[in-house]
C-alpha cells in the first residue's frame, strides 16, 4: 500500500509540472482566452484515477503555484482547486462508468464550479473580472478532457 502510493506520485508531480508550464506558455492574444486549464484537468484526473495518492495535496499545491505564477491573491486557486478536487474524488466511482459524453458534462460542471469560486474570490477581494470570456474556459476544458485522459493513461502505462 505504502509502496504503491509512492510509485504513483512521480507521474503525478511530473504531469502537474508540465501542465503548469503550459499554463504560462505565451500564446497569441486571440488564443489566450481559448487556453484550457490543463493543470486543473490534470488534478481532476489524478483525483479520480488514484484517489489515495494524495490528490487533495496535489490540488492545494498546484493551486498555490497558480496563485504565485499568475500573481493573484494567495490561496484563490488553491481554494477553488481543493474544493473541486474533493468533489471529483467524491464522484470518482460514478465517473469511471460514465460514457465519454457524460464524463465531459461532469467535468464541465466541475470546471464551472472552479470558475465560480475564482469569480467569487475575485469579487470579494475587490478586483472583479467580469469579461464573458472566463465562462468559456469550462467549455474548452470539458472538450479537452478525453484527449487529456487518453494521453495521461498512455503516459502511466509506460
Amino acid at each position, binding site marked *: 500500500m505504502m509502496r504503491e502510493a509512492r510509485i504513483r506520485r512521480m507521474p503525478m508531480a511530473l504531469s502537474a*509540472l508540465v501542465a*503548469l*508550464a503550459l499554463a*504560462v*506558455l*505565451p*500564446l497569441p*492574444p486571440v488564443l*489566450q*482566452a481559448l*487556453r484550457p486549464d490543463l493543470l486543473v484537468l490534470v488534478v481532476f484526473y489524478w483525483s*479520480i*484515477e*488514484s*484517489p*489515495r495518492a494524495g490528490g*487533495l*495535496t496535489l*490540488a*492545494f499545491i498546484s*493551486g*498555490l*503555484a497558480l496563485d*504565485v*505564477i*499568475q*500573481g*493573484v*491573491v*494567495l*490561496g*484563490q486557486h*488553491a*481554494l477553488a482547486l*481543493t*474544493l473541486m*478536487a*474533493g468533489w471529483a*474524488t*467524491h464522484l470518482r*466511482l460514478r*465517473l*469511471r462508468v460514465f460514457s*465519454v459524453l457524460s*464524463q465531459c458534462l461532469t467535468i464541465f460542471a466541475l470546471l464551472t464550479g472552479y470558475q465560480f469560486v475564482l469569480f467569487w*474570490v475575485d469579487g*470579494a*477581494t475587490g*478586483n472583479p*473580472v467580469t*469579461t464573458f*470570456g*472566463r465562462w468559456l474556459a469550462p467549455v474548452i476544458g470539458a472538450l479537452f*478532457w*478525453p484527449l487529456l*485522459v*487518453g494521453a495521461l*493513461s498512455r503516459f502511466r502505462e509506460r
Partner: protein
Amino acid sequence: MVAFRNSDTSGRITGLLLRCVLYSLLALGLIIVDKRYDHLGRIRRVLSVVAYPVQIAVASPFEGWDWFRESVSSRGTLRADKAKLEAELRLAQFRLQRYEALEAESQRLRALRDKTAEVTDRFVIGNVMDIDLDAFRERVLVDKGAQDGVFVGQAVLDSGGVFGQVARVGQLTAEVILVSDATHAIPVQVNRNGLRTIAVGTGDMGRLKLPYLPTSADVIAGDLLVTSGLGGGFPAGYPVGTVADVKRDPAQSLADVDVKPAAALDRSRELMFVWLKAQPAAGTGAAIAKSLPPAARMPNVPVPHATPPQAQPQLRSPNEAAKPATIPPPPGANDE
C-alpha cells in the same frame, strides 16, 4: 479511449471530507491574510523564487529561437539595420544635445525658484519575460525584482512613453500592470493647455479613456497627454498617449474621450524602471537611490535642496560654457 484502469475501485476514502475542509480553510485563511494584512510579501517572494525555474523553462525556448533567428539573419539585413540605426542615432544625438542644455536650464531655473526638482534620476532596464500571466488582466512579468531595488508602485516606461507601474515584486521578477489594465488610472495633463484629468485603462491594449472630462472641456483629437506628476507615483512630463477621438453628446454631462497609448504596450520588450529624485521614502528603491552619491545620480546638476541662495554663482559655473546667452544671469534675477 477514456479509460481508468486502476484497481483501487472500492471503498470509501477515509477522511476525504476532513482533509477537503482543512485545506479549504487553509486556503481561505491565506486569502484573508493576504488581502487584509501585508505579512505575506516575504512568503510570496520566496515562492516566486521557486516558480522562477518554471518561468525560465517556458521563456527560454522562445528566447533561444529569437537568438537563433538573429544569428542566422543575412548580411544584407544586418547592413540595412545598421544603416537605419545609425541614422536614428544621429537624429537622437542631435536632439539630445538640445535636451541636455534645456534640462540644465530647467534645473537652474527651478533651483532659483527654490523648488524641488521632480526629475528622474536613475533608470534600470528590464526585459519582459515570455510568460502569459492572466488572459483577462493586462500584466507582464519582467526579469528585475527586489534584489535590483524595484518596489511596488514604481513607474515603468518604454521608449514611447509611460508603460505602467509595478504591481508586485518578487525576489528576481516583478509584475508590471499596464496603463491599459481596466483597474489602472494615471493622472495626466493635456500638453497643449495644461488641462488636468485622469486616464483610465479599458482592458484593451490599444485604448485608454478620459472618463472625467465635461463636454465643455477643451480637448481635441490629436492632443498629446503627458503625466502631470500629481499623486507622486509617476515622473511629470512623460507622454501617456494621444487623444484619438472625442465624442460629445449634448445630453451627457461628460465627454467620451478615447486615447491611444504612447507606449507600445503589446510589443515592447525592454522596459525602464524609474526612480524619482524626490521619491518619498518608499521601500528599498528609495533607499538605494539615496545611498548613491549625488554626482552618480545626475552629473552636472546640483541638488536643489542643498544649495542656499548665496551659492548661486557656483551653481552657474558648470553649465556656463554650454549656455552662455539664452537666459538672464541669475544674480540679476536674485536681486528682485
